[in-house]
């Protein structure tokens, strides 16, 4: 029975600072074990919404419920989810292995050989096994992101957030990253929330999505991204999924 409950429930969330409202009336649910995408153009508030979902900001109104436990509270016990930040956000003065071991030493009593084994297994999972002793500055951008995923996985969360995972990656690295996300979701049963605007990646991985729009300050469409692409009557959503600029079709005709 508890498995049927949504993993994340966002109810009428309002985001902003002071009198400035960035997003409002945000309501959606994410089912357990699925890949859910938060879409929208630059400046539409996707990354802002992510900051609220992971508890870095407090909503002005409305609520976020993760796992039926309530709002994501920071630094109160073991974190219930992992986050991959846009740049990977690895700590520059630590090797990849040390970066991964950090949450372990904070939240568990695991030390020594066992810790090394767990760290190595996560690095192997993302294909970075040979680079355990490298510093973040010594590896490429795509590798940093994969290392960031490995670190997000170290505390065995059942929920992962990705902030623009394929931004700044070449097409092949981006596809590899998408495959990794699919693997994590299918093989490990992890619920994945992706913030992105990369269409190929959306159609490949996401089963459900919401589309945010700057002008509407909120959700303009929700559902299966492929269906939205084919059936949506909303001009912004249609343009977004078909990569066309407003007025482009008229231009072609004339």
């Amino acid at each position, binding site marked *: 029975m508890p498995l049927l409950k949504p993993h994340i429930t966002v109810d009428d969330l309002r985001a902003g600072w002071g009198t400035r409202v960035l997003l409002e009336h945000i309501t959606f649910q994410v089912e357990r074990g699925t890949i859910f995408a938060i879409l929208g153009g630059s400046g539409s508030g996707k990354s802002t919404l992510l*900051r609220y979902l*992971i*508890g*870095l900001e407090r909503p002005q109104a409305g609520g976020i419920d993760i796992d039926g436990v309530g709002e994501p509270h*920071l*630094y*109160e*016990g*073991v*974190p219930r*989810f*992992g*986050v991959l*930040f*846009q*740049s990977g*956000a*690895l*700590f*520059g003065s630590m090797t990849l292995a040390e970066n991964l071991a*950090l*949450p372990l*030493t*904070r*939240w568990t009593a695991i030390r020594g050989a066992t810790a090394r084994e767990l760290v190595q297994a996560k690095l192997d999972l993302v294909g970075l096994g040979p680079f355990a002793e490298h510093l973040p500055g010594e590896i490429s951008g795509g590798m940093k992101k994969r290392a*960031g995923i490995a*670190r*997000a996985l170290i*505390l065995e969360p059942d929920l992962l*957030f990705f902030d623009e995972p394929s931004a700044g990656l070449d097409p092949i690295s981006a596809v590899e990253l998408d495959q990794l996300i699919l693997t994590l979701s299918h093989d490990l049963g992890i619920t994945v929330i992706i913030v992105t605007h990369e269409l190929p990646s959306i159609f490949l991985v996401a089963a459900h999505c919401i589309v945010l729009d700057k002008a509407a300050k909120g959700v303009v469409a929700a559902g299966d991204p492929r269906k939205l692409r084919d059936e949506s009557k909303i001009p912004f959503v249609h343009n977004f999924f078909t990569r066309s600029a407003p007025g482009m079709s008229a231009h072609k005709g004339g």
Partner: protein
Amino acid sequence: MSVAIRADREGDHARLVATGPFDLAHATMAARAVENAEALLAGCGSVDVDLAQLERIDGAGAVLLARLLDRLDAGGRHARVIDDPNREAARLIASYRERRAGLPERPTRVMNPLTRIGALAAEVPSKANEAFDFIGRCAVAFPKAAVTPRSVDWRSLPRLIQEIGADGLLVTSAANLLIGAIIGFLGVSQLEGFGTIALVPQMVVVAHFRDLGPLVTGMIMAGRSGAGIASEIATMKVSEEVDALQSMGFDPVSWLVVPRCLALAIAVPLLTWLGDVLALVGGLGATIVVSHMTAGAFVDVALNAINPNNFFSGLVKTPFLGLSIGLIACGQGLLTRGGAAAVGTRTTTAVVLALFSVIVISALFTFFYALIGI
């Protein structure tokens, strides 16, 4: 061929013939040519622009001609580009005419002085709020660090003490030595007239141990470590490392702020103490060079003057100076939002505030001592 626009008038019709290279390298001349041509068009109803004799045109030249056409159209003159045979030039000009957005909105950040003062004043409550918020979080984090030691990055403490203390030793030592020498010189030159040179060692001890030592060391640390810590944490903030820490359940205040403040609270007293010793050396050197006092006599008087009051009243201040430098630098670092420019702004603010706080705290202690008669 030089850049020019020839205007041939036939009644109320004019034909503008542009000649020469209309490109970035000749843009100034082209702009002047456009201006001159425009001046000749008074009273014209229709204008043809002939591009056939253009030697070369690029975006810069096209913009100038496009704006000329815009102005002619706006002035009610019918302007027409004769695009044969130079179709490419005509297309280039047309593309700049199509993409003409309205005048840019006046950005609100350009403010007159009064508005600026008003805006600054309006920010005061939120700034104070930020500061109190941070102080509150620190007040929670320090006791929590004692209860849950794992929430603090203790491993970084030795490195921080090394960077803040040991690596700063040279500059604080040199400064203290020189300040001691300055007091010595001043003392000799001023007290000589009264025949009380014997009091110079006492003056060095009292002035330096009680006030100048902590002040000089604190100010150097505020500049050196305040900037270092603020920029380090600000960079971590803008590169999402602080967010990553939070997402992994670390409280950045415990993890980053506690060790840095501790390192400063340990390093500043030690550096001040060493600085006191060096100031005595400086004072001694200066005194025996410019007066007849012997080194032995100087040391005798100085040792006599070093009583617990003089010695500890200065040192007691120093952990507080270190703590305030650390809190200000870390606080400013953590408040950083935005990109590289924000790191610079926050670092500057951190150094200014830290320097000021060192002076204010030193003064408060001195007033307090005067009040209770130490």
